[in-house]
Structure formats: structure tokens, C-alpha cells
């Protein structure tokens, strides 16, 4: 099950000595993340950035009992690393690796479902909870504390919106990046469900994507909630039109604009709010909050 980590949540970092792993572990430690253990492709390393490094995830679990693992691996190793974490009994795994071969991403997702593990990603940039912890590479130090949580597919746009909210004096509570690749495991519903229960959060921003059905699932879920927090949604891409591709057998070409309009309708019918322009989040949400 997805949960929002706190500063007490012990974190394992797989691939802690890789270039990207090292950079983000250092930033996360500086923010106060409770990183208790790491693993590395280099089996001779015993310690890195003051964090003990273990030969296997099982050893790390035995020694430090981490509750969440973050995987910084190359596309070639990501499946193996995520599998290792799941088999060692870790119940939430955040996979940062992007551009994974699609067949492997599917395998990873199916495995997580079978084993009852919450897999965030692949291609997630992580989970950040303001004044608590960073799992992965969410640049919380660029944002101001507030009461709006953000969840979305594309990390770059999440950071942009979080910055707009910070500049507007609204601020953010949590930022959850689900991953922009086509195939990802955790969808909006479990995250929004956790955010609706989160006391630090009073409103939610959802950044969707043209591809996939997650926004419809979210609309169904949100419609049924009694205790709604306001939810502002946006999906980028309405001005792009790539619909003239020859479709595969049994598929229809659909225009991005039509898909986005359909998702907008579904979400608004469920009681969500829509932001028309990607530069308006600060203004719209500030106004919404003052009302």
C-alpha cells in the first residue's frame, strides 16, 4: 500500500554509489532523509556518504529494516534490483530508472502486483514530504511549505507547478512523481487516497497524461469520496496533434485534444477543478483557497 513517508521512515538506497544515486542521496541526506542503508554494484564498498553499504538487499533488511527502497539503476539492471528489493520483503519500492524496455517494465509491474508490493515508477522521480523526507530526487529545497499536495506523471511539470505555488505564497505539502513512461505501476488513486487522509494537505494538484486510463480511474474514485479536498487537474499536450499515424490493427487514432477533453469532462463531472493554462496554477489555487 502506498504511504507518505515521514522523517522517521528508514530508507534503503539501491545503487547509492552510481553517479545519479550519489547526487540524490547527498541531497536527500542534506534535507534530513533517514537513509539507513545502501547497496552498490561495487561489492567492496562498505560505507558511502556515511551510510553503511551492504552486499545484498537481504543483508540490508536484516541489519536496518528499511521500510522503503529507492532504486537508482541503469535500465539494464532496474528489473533485477526492484525484484531483489521485493523478494527481500520491502513493501514500497520507488524506481527512478526511466526508459526501461517496455517488456521489462510490464514484468516489473506484474511482479509487484503479485507480491503485493507498492511499486512507484519506473521513471518516478520520487516522493517528497515537506519538512519530513525525500525518497528519490524531489527538489523540496526549491519549494515553500504549504498545504497543497502535488501528484503527477511528469516530474518536470510537477516541479514547475510546485515552484509557482511557492512563488504565489500558497506552498506545497507533498510532491509525488509517478513517472512519465508509458508503463508505470502506481496510479493516481492510491496516492490521492493517502493525500485525502493526510492532515498536512488541504488541496491536491493532479498532473495527468494523455496516455493511459489512470485519470478515469481517479475520476471514479474521487466521485465516491465523501470527504473531498479540492482537486485541481491539468493534462499537458492539447496543442500537439500527432493523430495522423497509421494505427495498429484494432486501434483507432485519437487526437490528443479529444482525449484531454474527455478526461477533463470525467474529472470535472466527479467534482474536480480544471486549470486551463499551465502558468495559472499559482493564481487559480490562491484564489480558490481565499474563497
Amino acid at each position, binding site marked *: 500500500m502506498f504511504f507518505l513517508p515521514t522523517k522517521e521512515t528508514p530508507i534503503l538506497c539501491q545503487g547509492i554509489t552510481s553517479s*545519479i544515486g550519489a*547526487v*540524490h542521496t547527498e541531497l536527500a541526506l542534506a534535507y534530513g532523509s533517514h537513509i539507513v542503508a545502501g547497496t552498490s554494484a561495487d561489492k567492496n564498498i562498505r560505507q558511502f556518504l556515511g551510510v553503511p553499504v551492504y552486499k545484498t538487499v537481504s543483508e540490508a533488511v536484516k541489519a536496518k529494516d528499511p521500510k522503503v527502497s529507492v532504486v537508482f539503476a541503469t*535500465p539494464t539492471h532496474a528489473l533485477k534490483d526492484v525484484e531483489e528489493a521485493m523478494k527481500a520483503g520491502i513493501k514500497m519500492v520507488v524506481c527512478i530508472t*526511466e*526508459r*526501461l*524496455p*517496455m*517488456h*521489462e517494465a*510490464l*514484468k516489473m*509491474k*506484474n511482479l509487484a502486483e503479485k507480491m503485493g508490493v507498492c511499486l512507484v515508477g519506473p521513471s518516478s*522521480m520520487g516522493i517528497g514530504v515537506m519538512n519530513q523526507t525525500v525518497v528519490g*530526487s*524531489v*527538489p523540496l529545497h*526549491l519549494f515553500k511549505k504549504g498545504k497543497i499536495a502535488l501528484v*503527477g*506523471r*511528469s*516530474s*518536470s*511539470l*510537477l*516541479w*514547475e507547478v510546485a*515552484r509557482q505555488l511557492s*512563488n504565489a505564497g500558497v506552498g506545497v505539502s507533498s510532491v509525488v512523481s509517478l513517472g*512519465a513512461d*508509458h*508503463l508505470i505501476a502506481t496510479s493516481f488513486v492510491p496516492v490521492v487516497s493517502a493525500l485525502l487522509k493526510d492532515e498536512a494537505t488541504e488541496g491536491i494538484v493532479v*498532473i495527468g*497524461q494523455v*496516455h*493511459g*486510463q489512470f485519470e478515469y480511474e481517479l475520476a471514479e474514485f474521487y466521485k465516491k469520496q465523501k470527504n473531498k479536498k479540492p482537486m485541481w487537474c*491539468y493534462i*499537458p*499536450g*492539447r*496543442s*500537439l496533434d*500527432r493523430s*495522423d*499515424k*497509421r494505427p*495498429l*490493427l*484494432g486501434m483507432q487514432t485519437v487526437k490528443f485534444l479529444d482525449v484531454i477533453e474527455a478526461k477533463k469532462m470525467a474529472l470535472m463531472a466527479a467534482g474536480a477543478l480544471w486549470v486551463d*493554462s*499551465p*502558468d495559472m496554477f499559482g493564481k487559480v489555487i490562491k484564489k480558490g483557497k481565499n474563497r
Partner: protein
Amino acid sequence: MELQEYHVKHIFRQAKLPVLKGVVAYTPEEAVEVAKKIGKPPYFLKAQIVGGSACYGSLLTPDTRTNGCIYVKNREDLFAAATELFGHPSWLNEADTLFEIHKIYVEGGVNEATEIGRFVFRVNFEEQCQMLSVVSPLGKLTSFHIDNTLTEDILDGALCAFHVTDEKTQKSLLNILKKAYKLFRFYGAMAVELSPIVQLKDGSLKIIDGRLVFDPNTTHKFPELIPLIESRIGKEREKLARENHFRYMGLKGNIACVVNGIGLGWATVDLIQRKGGKVAALLDIGTEPTKETVTKALRLVLSEPNVDGVLVNIFGGSTRCDLIAEGLIAASPEMATGLPLVVRMDGINMDAGQRLLYESRLPFVVKTKMDEAVRAVVKAVKEKR
């Protein structure tokens, strides 16, 4: 990412899938020559364009010319048909650009045939699974989820969906399904499509058209295929984009955009359109750019023919803005073109990055907020016109 049909057929042939005899021709004369080698008429003449050539029409009513495929019944008609294909002025590819036809694929060996059906193995993004879809000759679509293996249940279901009852044909069809699935798994492909499959008078099955859609994330495992993958956006630009792991999209406007992150990129395109501009190209430098790749990215979008202005929109969440600035400055010889160049920079080391741009004394227009930057580039491009 797709191969042209004749490359796909070559792969099918090697995988022992039953394809027709076929040879590539580069002129109408050559088409006549190779047809002799193939055998008796009729022939299929197929223009070789990715995503364009398709033998979509039914065999019995060969109304397939719009898809770049002509069904020729007599050898005497072959020259004229080939001339028509080569001379066709307006084949369109995905990005709506004109495509000249340099080669056609001549296939033969089908005289009287009945359609058995079509099928595709694909990764379904909407439902997040692997899927087999079968279309019967009457056009009924049946789909099966595949959970890691092609089970007997799925194969039985597929045979029902094809409406094939006689045992020998069933056996041949199962063989084709299994081999196609093996290819799908071997290449980690996004799709393997066989359409249509026909039955000849002697009872044997043949594949008329085939498609192999590759996952861009696995092509590095098959270096021999990379030179065969046809470009969509002009050879050089496509090659450069691929080499540097850029995501690149050619569009129809006149403002080129360089961004870090695809969501931010699409949002930027939306905003430019809202403010009255149009985008010529969108380039995503990804989450781990270096100074060199930034320089290459700027050069690449400047090489687009219709660019009147450039917007670089960077939010440095894990990327350092000063590194981006250094890369942009290094591309300065290319900027002597006098194009307006707006740089939006926010995030990690933004002050250092913006200072570098100012101190370079190059004609960058530097902004911190996305809306300001978009307004600036749209205005500058309008004034230039």
C-alpha cells in the same frame, strides 16, 4: 520506430514465417525485371515508406492506391503501375511532410487466395498489458491479455476468433502465431502485426503485410537494425537526437523549444499556443544533460528550416542551471543568425546560470518565469515577421 516493409519481411523470412517472394526495385524498369524473377502475375507493388505503405484493402477489391500499394493482375500493367507509384507527388508521413518514393517492393506468388484474418501482438499502454488482437475476415475484433506466456487457452481462443476449423490450417496458423510471438519477445517489440494472412489454393498460408514496431528503449541491443530504421524528421536531425537521447518532435510552427522534461515541454507548447505562437520543434534534453548535449540540442533546433525564434525553458529540479548556461553559450557561433533567443531559467543554481548568460554579452533574453518567457518569444517572433 519502425522498419520499412521489405526489412520486416526479411526478418520474417529468417524467422521461417511464410512470406511471399519479393524483391526491391529502384526504378519502374527494375520493377519489371525483378517481377520476372519472382514468377507469374499477379503482383503487389508497395511503396516503401514507414507508416505509409500498407496493403490494407481486401485482395478481391484492390482499392489500395491511397496506401501506396497497387495490386497488378497482368505483367503488361506493371510498368505503368510502378511509374505511378514512383511519380506519386504527395505521400505523407507522420509529421505531414512530403515523402518522395525511392524504392518499391515487388511481391508475387498469390493467385487465388482467401483471407484468413489478421493479428497483432502489442504492448497496450491504455490497459498496461501485453495483448493479442485478432481480426476475423468479417472484421470482428477479439483481444486476449497475455500474462507473460502464450498459453494454450489464448491460442485456442485465437483459432476460434479466426473461425478456422480444418485441422491442417489450424496447425499452420498456430505455427505462425507462435513464431510471431517469439519475434515479439525477442525484440522486446512494441508490436508485431501480420495483416492479412491468406490461404492459397494449395492450402498453404502466406503473410501479405507485416509490421514490426520497435521499443526505442531496446534498439541499442540490435545495432544492426539502427541504420535501417527510417528517419521521420530528416536523417541528420533524427540521428543526432537519437545519439544524444533527446526526445524530438517536429511540428509545423516557427518557434523552436528546448526543455528539460517532456511534461514541461508539452505544457510549454500549450502555453505558446495560448499566447498566439506556434511551435516548430520540441526537444527534450532529458534529466541528465551535460554542457555538450545542451550545445548540441540548441544547434539541432536551429537547423530546423522554419525557425524564427527559440525558447529554452529549463526548470532545474535536478539539473544545474549554470551547466545549461555554459552549454548555451558554447553554441554561440550558431546564434549569429539574429534569431530571438529567450532563455527561461529557474531552479538549482539559477542565479549563477542567469549571470553567466548576462555576462556572455550574447543576445539572450533571460527570464525566470515561464509565462514571461513565452510572452517574450511570441512577441519577438511576431516583430521579426
